[in-house]
């Protein structure tokens, strides 16, 4: 039945992508703009795209607009948009210009955009970027979250709260517009050869602070897989909620060592202080939900995505290895050095053994 629905699903003609000044949304918009079946891709953001994002956008019809203003409704109606990709959900306050601005963009932006979609009869498909942060992170949660796992307690930390609120609005939209296919993509944190996020900067620290007594299981999604899945959600029809993560897990200690970094375990209260200090100094933009992530970890089930999209994202260890290689990180000593060290230690062990043996033999000879 799902397959049938996909076959009958019409390819989008006019796509609206929000948040295109950011690299991820810009990549998605550029990929869709290159698709000959799609007539027009409208990209909106309240800031002008710069750098790599700007270079990706020549084929995209960029409109500078604030999605948290009612003006967005006119844009959706005038362009006769049939597919909306809401990717303007920001994870950290730094990029958005403070926590208030971040909440404004995430929550009010989503609210306005959904209101615009609700009154636009042309809209038939909506894809929303969400996060696995929507599940929270606590010791009372099952080890692996499926799309049906209910939230136990409101997570602490701005981003996670925003995500929970956004998903609430999306549920409301689904009820009011049952004719629209709504896809919610809950992404694990991005890594990749070029991804630059709070978490990738965290792993780039020379000494990585971790929480003493906790070695959480963590999961990532490769940024390229995230783009691919989002594009498929736009082109095909996959109504429902989907976890998007690389199968498999890494332990935090394992990830730190694979990145060639040294873990620095510190007690939870100290870690909170360090996180706040780091945040204030602008070194690392760290929020409390990320701290919870580093204490309890978060692992999701990706079976539904693989079955429904027919696409398997790179595994978490593979994605992380690509991130390490792309950022020129890795073991502080190369494999050759490790081999050398192992040989030396083995020779040393052998010498100690033969020394011990001759000592004992001498003792044994004595009457």
């Amino acid at each position, binding site marked *: 039945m799902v397959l049938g629905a996909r076959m009958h699903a019409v390819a989008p003609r006019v796509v609206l992508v929000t948040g295109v000044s950011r690299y991820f949304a810009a990549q998605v918009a550029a990929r869709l703009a290159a698709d000959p079946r799609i007539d027009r891709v409208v990209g909106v953001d309240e800031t002008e795209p710069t750098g790599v994002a700007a270079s990706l956008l020549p084929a995209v019809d960029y409109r500078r607009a604030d999605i948290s203003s009612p003006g967005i409704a006119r844009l959706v109606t005038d362009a006769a948009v049939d597919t909306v990709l809401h990717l303007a959900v920001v994870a950290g306050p730094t990029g958005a210009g403070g926590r208030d601005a971040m909440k404004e963009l995430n929550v009010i932006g989503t609210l306005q955009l959904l209101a615009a979609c609700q009154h636009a009869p042309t809209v038939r498909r909506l894809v929303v970027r969400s996060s696995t942060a929507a599940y929270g992170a606590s010791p009372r949660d099952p080890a692996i979250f499926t799309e049906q796992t209910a939230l136990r307690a409101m997570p602490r930390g701005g981003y996670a709260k925003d995500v929970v609120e956004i998903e609430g609005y999306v549920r409301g939209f689904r009820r009011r517009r049952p004719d629209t296919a709504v896809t919610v993509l809950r992404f694990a944190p991005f890594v990749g050869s070029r991804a630059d996020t709070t978490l990738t900067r965290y792993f780039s620290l020379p000494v990585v602070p971790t929480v003493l007594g906790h*070695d959480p*299981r963590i999961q990532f999604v490769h940024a390229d897989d995230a783009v691919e899945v989002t594009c498929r959600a736009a082109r095909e029809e996959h109504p429902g909620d989907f976890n998007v993560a690389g199968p498999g*897990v890494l332990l935090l200690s394992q990830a730190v*060592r694979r990145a060639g970094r040294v873990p620095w375990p510190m007690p939870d209260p100290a870690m909170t202080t360090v996180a706040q200090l780091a945040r204030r100094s602008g070194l690392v933009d760290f929020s409390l939900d990320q701290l919870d992530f580093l204490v309890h970890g978060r692992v999701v089930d990706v079976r539904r995505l693989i079955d429904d999209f027919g696409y398997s994202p790179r595994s978490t260890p593979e994605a992380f290895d690509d991130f390490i290689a792309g950022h020129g990180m890795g*073991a502080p000593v190369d494999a050759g050095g490790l081999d050398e060290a192992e040989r030396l*230690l083995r020779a040393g*062990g052998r010498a100690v053994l033969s020394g*011990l043996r001759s000592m004992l033999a001498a003792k*044994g000879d004595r009457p």
Partner: protein
Amino acid sequence: MTADEPAVGDDGTAAKDPSANAGRADGDPRVGAGRADGDPRVDAGRADGDPRADAAEASGGTAEADVWERRIADGLAFLRRRVTGDYPVDDFGFDPELTEQLLARVLRPLYRSWFRVEVSGLDHVPADGAALLVGNHSGTIAMDSLMLQLALLDDHPAHRHLRLLGADFIFRTPMLGEFARKSGATLACNPDAERLLSDGEIVGVFPEGFKGIGKRFTDRYKLQRFGRGGFVAAALRTKVPIVPVSIVGAEEIYPLIGDIKPLARLLGIPYFPVTPFFPWLGPLGAVPLPSKWLIECGEPIDTSALDADPDDPAAVFGLADQVRETIQQTLHRLLLRRGSTF
């Protein structure tokens, strides 16, 4: 180690006859074959706990040197994998290498020499495929679960890993939670239990929970209430056999005579144990008494043949009671068989 070294000295002449040593090392299938094939994890673990392997080592200089060189090489390879993070863990955070190399090695002396655990009925635990092991819980700390885990790893012909289900208290506690996950445990909740069982794992559960391990010494071998029977629903839903496991011996390791409630509340733990030796003797009081242990895995209950609805509380409670009764009766029988406590 110290026991081996003088033996080498005494038997120093053997070192001069390499053919004899080679013959001896090959003659012992555990040492010879174990070293030859490429899996250092399992073999190193097995050979270590095997008194015969130690005897073979002590019998000659070269054989002993080979074994020790092999151990150093294995140890270094292990350390290297640890330092570079190059080892697999499953989605639950289970680290089989760490469990076999570290946890099993630490527990093995307790299992073999201290508690002298005798296991029976291991043929009731399948060699492959899932099963739910349901046991009685006792002993102030959950030593019984660890011993059952080692029993399946060492003494089951298929050397199976037991995936324990633990209370959320464990996963909230720093260190303990980390260690529990790495040793294969996960939170006692239906999604996790059913996922593990569907993956074909052997899952261990102690439905009495803290009521079981935290009961007084005077209540020993009296099974407590079996919670909500969630484990029965998990087994019914995944259609895996339930194996009742009766453990005798854990009750006496820390005879619980009291509970300092205010201290427990202060530390955020379920109870603060008082035994005849703890906390009076400090760390010495934390040494478990060397009681004799018997573990019996009973006749499996084939849930796929039952016509019970996992959502019907009456059916679930009925089956839970049946398991509880079986364990209780087996406990009485094992106690008679054991005779003296030590």
